[in-house]
């Protein structure tokens, strides 16, 4: 059970986002740039928060931006965005966000495998801070790839 490969274009370090919407958009653009999704998927990710609130902030400092599998998804993919300045999503417990993960899957079962691999990496409570402060893309990959050995 491993994560989809993380292309260079899928990792954006120390991005500047004025608000949560911009932060999610950067994660969506990284999925588009790495060939995983269309811009429609990014809009769908934003709609999930507009419709349901900031529940995608699933842990202190981390937002898991995603929408449903569908025609907007070309291949399974993951993007990782670290923010130069933390952003408020309006979550009662887990704000501010320093890391946004963008997640796209062509089918629900593949999606769940990627989610399980993410859990392997981030169940280690130090991993979010480590990703937030990662100096290089290689450092980000090294933290996420711990999921393969858990």
């Amino acid at each position: 059970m491993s994560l989809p490969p993380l292309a260079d274009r899928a990792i954006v370090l120390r991005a500047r986002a004025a608000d949560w919407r911009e932060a999610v958009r950067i994660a969506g653009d990284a999925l588009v740039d790495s060939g995983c999704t269309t811009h429609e998927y990014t809009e769908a990710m934003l709609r999930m928060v507009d419709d349901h609130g900031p529940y995608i902030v699933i842990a202190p400092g981390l937002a898991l931006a995603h929408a449903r599998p569908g025609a907007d998804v070309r291949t399974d993919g993951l993007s990782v965005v670290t923010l130069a300045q933390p952003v408020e999503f309006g979550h009662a417990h887990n704000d501010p966000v320093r890391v946004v993960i963008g997640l796209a899957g062509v089918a629900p079962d593949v999606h769940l495998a990627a989610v399980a691999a993410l859990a392997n990496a981030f169940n280690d409570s130090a991993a979010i801070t480590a990703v937030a402060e990662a100096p290089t893309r290689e450092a980000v990959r090294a933290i996420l790839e711990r999921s393969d050995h858990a």
Partner: protein
Amino acid sequence: MKIVAICGAGIGSSGILKVNAERVLQRLGLSATVVAADIGSVARVAADAQVILTSAEFVDAIGATRADVVVIENHFDTDELSRKLEAAIG
């Protein structure tokens, strides 16, 4: 026993809850079916569930249910999940 994890799309944060709930149940020596579903299908999927795991944002939308609704703050914190699941089941 059936546990349903609920989120907006039924695959992201509820997927994390499903995966981690299965790990916690194994650790506790309990057996249960854990299903991830979206909020739109909660009435159907959770009709025979004992526990619903979710985020605070969905509690109102879940509405009246016979299941115990358990709100998880940190989806990656298996200790929180274990403590709250044990309280709901035990």
